[in-house]
């Protein structure tokens, strides 16, 4: 289960840096979503974060593909009115591309555009979208049904309702105010993360057999590590597509995936 923290656009670089560094060991991804900051400010923030030991892989740049590329951040998240995912993915196939969606149809379109995951919301009424009724858990369930890519739920999620979101088989949750408006961001993040532990196991079909793996298995690299096959000569196919070695760490593994792990045996 993934926990995404999204910056709230209300803080200075110094404030952001302090919070992000404190939660970087807890959350899985930190989205830099600072629409009012200039590219120059963003570059400074990112460089300082990296300098402070935040892994590039944990950072996701919202909207600003140019900044992500220049800073060498491998993850880009596209807002609904952002760059077309299909063009980004085609031009930069190694980037992990996420898309914000607000309906099952938009989620499907994101998947077809080649997005690696989508964020769907908002599930519950939130501070950041005041007055808008949440789209609700049922809609979330519908989205998860409709697409194969991971779905990250967003909008008003707290430790109190996080379990319900996970029951709808969302891959994870994204939060903004719960962490960035908290007096104790680190503790808030840890509490959410704790909710996931001991959560659902991931069900896959490996080599034709229904197989359950621990839910910390998020990508192909994790999967091979889980079975201790990381040093063996194997080839992995996921839902009919070969996953190259270079992609193992970036290739998400999702509920219900059909995975083949093959090797060379004696033959004439």
């Amino acid at each position, binding site marked *: 289960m993934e926990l995404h923290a999204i910056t709230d656009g209300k803080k200075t670089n110094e404030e952001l840096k302090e919070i992000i560094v404190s939660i970087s060991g807890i959350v899985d991804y930190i989205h830099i979503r600072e629409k009012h900051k200039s590219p120059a400010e963003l570059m400074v923030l990112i460089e300082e974060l990296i300098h402070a030991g935040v892994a590039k892989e944990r950072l996701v740049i919202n909207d600003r593909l140019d900044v992500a590329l220049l800073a060498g951040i491998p993850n880009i998240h596209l807002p609904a009115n952002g760059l077309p995912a299909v063009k980004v993915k085609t031009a930069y196939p190694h980037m992990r591309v996420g898309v914000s969606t607000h309906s099952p149809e938009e989620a499907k379109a994101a998947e077809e555009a080649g997005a690696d995951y989508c964020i769907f919301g908002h599930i519950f009424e939130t501070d950041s979208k005041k007055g808008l009724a949440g789209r609700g858990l049922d809609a979330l369930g519908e989205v998860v049904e409709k697409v194969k890519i991971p779905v990250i739920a967003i909008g008003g999620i707290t430790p109190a309702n996080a379990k319900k979101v996970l029951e709808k088989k969302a891959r994870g949750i994204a939060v903004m105010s719960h962490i960035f408006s908290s007096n104790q961001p680190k503790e808030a993040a840890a509490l959410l993360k704790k909710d996931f532990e001991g959560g659902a196991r991931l069900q896959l079909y490996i080599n034709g057999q229904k197989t359950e793996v621990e839910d910390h298995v998020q990508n192909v690299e994790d999967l091979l590590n889980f079975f201790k096959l990381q040093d063996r000569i194997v080839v992995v196919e996921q839902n009919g597509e070969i996953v190259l070695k270079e992609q193992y760490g970036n290739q998400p593994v999702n509920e219900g995936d059909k995975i083949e792990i093959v090797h*060379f045996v004696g033959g*004439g």
Partner: protein
Amino acid sequence: MMLKIADKVFKSRLLLGTGKFPNFEIQKEAVEASGAEILTFAVRRMNIYEPSQPNFLEMLDLSKYTLLPNTAGAKTAEEAVRIAKLAKASGLCDMVKVEVIGDDKTLLPDPIETLRASEMLLKEGFIVLPYTSDDVVLAKKLEELGVHAIMPGASPIGSGQGIVNPLNLSLIIEQSKIPVIVDAGIGSPADCAIAMELGADGILLNSAVSGAKDPVKMAKAMKLAIEAGRLGYEAGRIPKKRYAVASSPAEGMLTS
């Protein structure tokens, strides 16, 4: 003269399969004794619950060998392409032995699917070596497609019956500008020598060595037979005559 497949050059004309050896130690010795530089492998699902299972390929010094994965198990061109792509994704090989079986009892190749698979794999940029029946026209069509070697069977896989249709084999050899590698059905060193004397460019065999009482010794025997057959072919044999022609001078015999 060396064996040249696409842009790869090999000293040895023996291609060795790696199936059904009694154990890895004997197999390793047999591979060394055979002098083979090209080894075939199959692609199969791994038992993911046995991470420490030994694997022959992982014991080899891969810098010394060229891997030739086969598409065994495929019954259609699409299945063959899928297997070939999986093999190539290992990053260890770009050649593939196209093997599309059309009949479970005889294990004879399906000519139509073999042709289709070869065409598809050529488009994908593979070095394509199709295992085919000894059909002369099929061999020609495969060559026209652009395959890099043609591998007609001597007789059914694993049967050890040797060369049952030397005429067809020699016609294929005669018409081909690409290497002809006789694949499958070899039983003994004599079979190798015959195929090589017919002008074959190489031999692919497996069971004849792995199933022999002494696989290591048989591997060496095959190597020598192939070398002998090749030398014989290059040297040019005498034509067959109906009656005897004395080797010793007819003049100066003591009895005349």
